[in-house]
C-alpha cells in the first residue's frame, strides 16, 4: 500500500514542475491527433523507447554512479527472445517479454557478480567487453539468424494483433509505449524513494560510509543492475516488435549502449526527469539532423558529428546535465 502511495506521490517536486509535467503528459496523450507526418510519430515512439532505456540505465548509472556502457546486450537479449519465440513457436509478446526479462536478469547476475568487483574505468570498459562478446556470439549463432539477424514483418498485415504486437499503423505502438512510459515513470518514482534507491545514492557518495551503515555494497549493486537489465530488456522486446528487423551489429552495438547512457547523462543522471529530458532533446535532434543533413544534403555522418559535439560540450562543461543546471539555479535562489 505504501509502495503504491510512494509511486504516485510526486509532491516533493515544486508545483511548477508538476504543472509542466502534467501539461506535457497531456500533450503526449493527444499528440496523435495532430501529428502531421508518420516521421514525427516514429520520432515520438523512439523518444519513449529511449526514455525507458535511459530510466533503466539511470538506476545503476545515475543513482548508483556505476558507469554502465553495456546496456545494448540486454536490449539484444530482450529483442532476440521475443523475435525467436515469435518466429519459431508463435509465442505472443506478452509471454516472451517476461521470459526475455528473466533470461536477461539471469545473465546480468552471472556477469554482474564478477563485474562489480571492478571500479571506475575498469568497470566501464568491462561492461563494453561483455556486451561485445555477446554480440560476437550472436553474430555466429545460426539459431538466432547469425549475422543476418531476424525479420518478423509479415507479408500481409492482419488486423491489429494485440497479442503479437504486429500493427500496420504506428498509432497502436504509440499508445502502447506511452503506457509503458507512464508505468516506467511511476516505477522510477517509487525506486528513488525506496530503500534500495537510498542505499545506492549513499554508495555513489562514499562506499566505505555505505558499508558502515550496514549496506552490502556488492549485493546492492548487483540487485540494481538486475533491475536496470529487466527494464532495458522489456523495452528491447517492444523495440523488435516495432522495428521488425534485428541484426546483432545494430541492436547490440556499442553506439546504442552509449546513446542510452548519454541521454540519461545529458538530461541529468540520478534524477527522475533526467533521462526523459535527455531523450527529449537528443532523439528528435538525431532524427531531424539525419533527415535534413544526412539524407537531404547527402552528407553522410554529419548528423553524428553534431551529435558528438554535443556530447563533448556537455561532458566538458556541464557534467550534471540539464537537470543539474535547473537544480543549481534553484539552490542558489533559495539561499
Amino acid at each position, binding site marked *: 500500500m505504501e509502495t503504491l502511495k510512494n509511486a504516485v506521490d510526486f509532491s516533493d517536486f515544486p508545483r511548477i514542475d508538476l504543472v509542466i509535467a502534467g501539461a506535457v503528459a497531456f500533450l503526449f496523450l493527444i499528440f496523435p491527433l495532430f501529428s502531421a507526418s508518420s516521421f514525427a510519430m516514429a520520432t515520438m515512439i523512439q523518444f519513449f523507447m529511449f526514455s525507458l532505456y535511459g530510466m533503466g540505465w539511470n538506476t545503476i*548509472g545515475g543513482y548508483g*554512479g556505476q*558507469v554502465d*556502457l553495456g546496456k545494448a546486450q540486454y536490449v539484444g537479449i530482450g529483442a532476440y527472445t521475443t523475435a525467436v519465440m515469435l518466429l519459431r513457436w508463435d509465442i505472443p509478446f506478452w509471454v516472451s517479454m517476461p521470459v526475455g526479462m528473466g533470461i536477461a536478469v539471469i545473465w546480468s547476475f552471472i556477469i554482474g557478480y*564478477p*563485474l562489480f*568487483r*571492478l571500479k*571506475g*574505468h*575498469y568497470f*566501464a*570498459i*568491462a561492461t*563494453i*567487453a*561483455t556486451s*561485445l*562478446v555477446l554480440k*560476437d*556470439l550472436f*553474430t*555466429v549463432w545460426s539459431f538466432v539468424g547469425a*549475422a543476418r539477424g531476424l525479420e518478423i514483418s509479415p507479408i500481409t498485415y492482419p488486423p491489429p494483433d494485440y497479442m503479437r504486437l504486429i500493427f500496420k499503423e504506428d498509432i497502436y505502438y504509440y499508445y502502447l509505449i506511452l503506457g509503458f512510459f507512464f508505468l516506467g515513470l511511476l516505477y522510477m518514482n517509487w525506486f528513488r524513494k525506496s530503500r534500495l534507491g537510498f542505499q545506492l545514492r549513499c554508495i555513489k557518495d562514499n562506499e566505505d560510509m555505505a558499508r558502515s551503515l550496514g549496506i552490502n555494497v556488492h549485493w546492492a549493486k548487483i540487485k540494481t543492475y538486475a533491475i536496470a537489465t529487466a527494464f532495458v530488456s522489456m523495452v528491447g522486446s517492444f523495440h523488435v516488435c516495432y522495428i521488425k528487423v534485428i541484426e546483432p551489429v545494430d541492436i547490440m552495438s*556499442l553506439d546504442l549502449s*552509449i546513446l542510452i*547512457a*548519454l541521454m540519461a*547523462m545529458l538530461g541529468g*543522471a540520478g534524477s527522475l526527469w533526467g533521462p526523459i529530458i535527455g531523450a527529449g532533446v537528443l532523439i528528435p535532434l538525431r532524427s531531424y539532423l539525419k533527415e535534413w543533413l544526412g539524407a537531404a544534403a547527402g*552528407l*553522410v*555522418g*554529419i548528423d*553524428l*558529428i553534431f*551529435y*558528438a*559535439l*554535443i*556530447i*563533448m560540450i*556537455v*561532458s*566538458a*562543461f556541464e*557534467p550534471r546535465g540539464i537537470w543539474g543546471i535547473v537544480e543549481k539555479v534553484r539552490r542558489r535562489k533559495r539561499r
Partner: protein
Amino acid sequence: MDLLLGSIAAGIVLGMVIALVALGLTIIFGVMEIVNFAHGEFLMVGMYTGLLTAQATGTDPIFTLPVAAIVGFLLGVICYAGFIKFLIRGPMVAQLLGTFGLMLFLRNLALLIFGSSDRTVHHGILVGKSFDIGMGIILPATKAAAAGLSVIAFLAVWLLMNRTKIGKALTATALNAQAARYMGIPTEKMNALAWGIGGGSVTVAGALIVNFWAVNPFMGLLFTMIAFTVVALGGFGSVPGAFFAGLVVGLIMEIPGFWDFFTYTFDWPWMADVPMTSLKYMWIYVAYFVITVIRPRGLFGWKH
C-alpha cells in the same frame, strides 16, 4: 607444426605493433588517469595519414612515418588543449562519455571525408613481398617491417620517458601531480606533452599497420578495445608492461590460427564447425574481462 609456428610468429609480429598502439594509451593514463576512448580513432587518423601521404608522394607509407608522427603529436596536443583540459575537471562519468564523444566526432569526420569503403595500400616497395625465415614460416615483408619499426619506436619512447629530463618530469607528474607542481614542473604542459607523445606513437603505429590492414572509418573501436586489453594486462600506466602484454594480445589475436592447428592435428570433426574466424576478436574482450577480474593491477601495474 608449421601451422603452429606460423601462428606464433604471426602473433608475436602483430603483438609488437599492438604494443606500440597501446603505448600511447598507457602513457596518457599514467600521467592523467583518464581513459581515452578515441584512441582507436587516433590510430585511424594515423592510418589515413600514412595512406594519403604515401599516395600523394608515390612512396611507401613506411617512409612517411615522420609525417604521421607530427600529425599525431599535433592531434594529441590539440585534443588536450581544446577539450580534455576542461573534461578532467568533471566526474569520471563525464570523462568517459566525453572521450567517447571525441571518438564519435573523429569517426564521423572520417566518414564524411573519406566515405565508408575500405582502403588499402596497393603498391609500395614492401607490399606483396615476403621472407621465408625457415621452418616453413613465411612472413610478409610489410608485417616484418612494421614489427621492427614498432620496436624501435617503442624503445625511443621508452628512452624518452626514462633517460631524459622531460621524461622524468612526465613520470613525476604521473606519480603526484601536486608535488610535481610544487617542484616547478609545468604539469599542464606535461599533460599536453603526454597527449602529444600518446597521439604521436599511436599514429606511427597506424602508418605501420596500414601496410597490411585495410582502413575504414569504423575500425577504431576494435583497436581501442585491443589497446585497453593490452593496457589492462600490462597494468595501466606501465610502459614495459605494455610491451609484453602487447605480445600476449598479439598471440590471443592469432587464436583462430591455433584453432586451425588443433583441428588439423586432432582431426575432430566438431572443431572444424566452430566459426572461429568470425569469433576472432571476441577473445580480446574475453581476455580483458578475465584479466581485470582476476588481476586488476595487471602484470606490471603500479597504479590503480
